[in-house]
């Protein structure tokens, strides 16, 4: 079963946690990315994620498999949202269970760091002032898009 899922409905941290229960694991680390109300000095109202499913899933699985192999973790799983998200919504969930906490922390951090820069997922911020913009597109700003950074982290 795939360890990387794209979801168009709310992420369920409780259910995801229950699925990872394993008596071989002594340490469990979760990262959640939440939609926050500001970014780069602007007030954010909501976010919109666009995902290219086939490669987001296959590349996500590869990232998770490589982190599991490198750090000897018991299990890892990730979910990323697509579609419209409101303030406070969970945009991404990464859970790692390992025998010891060090492996769990390192693998979880590695997975989310790579997910943010390697998966074909794009984020559009909608601002309170009515403007909007694609995050990280300042370097392809021929047409005047200059928004930086991100309203989750």
């Amino acid at each position, binding site marked *: 079963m795939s360890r990387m899922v794209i979801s168009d409905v709310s992420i369920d941290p409780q259910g995801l946690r229950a699925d990872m229960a394993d008596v071989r694991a002594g340490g469990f680390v979760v990262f959640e*990315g939440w939609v926050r109300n500001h970014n780069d000095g602007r007030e954010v109202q909501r976010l919109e994620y*666009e995902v*290219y499913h*086939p*490669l987001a899933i296959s*590349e996500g699985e590869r990232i998770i498999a490589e982190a599991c192999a490198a750090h000897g973790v018991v299990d890892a799983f990730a979910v*990323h949202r697509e579609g419209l998200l409101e303030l406070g919504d969970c*945009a*991404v969930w990464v859970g790692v269970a390992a025998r010891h906490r060090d492996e769990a922390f390192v693998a979880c951090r590695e997975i*989310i760091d790579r*997910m*943010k*820069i*390697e*998966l*074909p*997922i*794009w*984020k*559009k911020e909608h601002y309170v002032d009515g403007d909007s913009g*694609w*995050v*990280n*597109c300042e*370097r*392809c700003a*021929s*047409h005047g*898009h200059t928004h930086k950074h*991100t309203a*989750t*982290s």
Partner: protein
Amino acid sequence: MKQVAVEYFALFRERAGCAEEAVQTTATTAVELFKELEHRHGTDDPRGHCKVAINGAMADWDDNIADGDRVLLFPPVAGG
């Protein structure tokens, strides 16, 4: 002259005004094709921040393209 299918995503799709189009090109590599299409997606150089996939797999900008290929042009990603 070869014909390829080009797919645009996110910012590129908005700029091009379409998600997909057939393109006639003399480009040998993905980066050459990308630069030929600057008037569509609005970006001069993709290296270091944009990605490309060819026929369903992530590719390098220097990879060759062939007649009938499907080329996906990805603006800078921002997961999480």
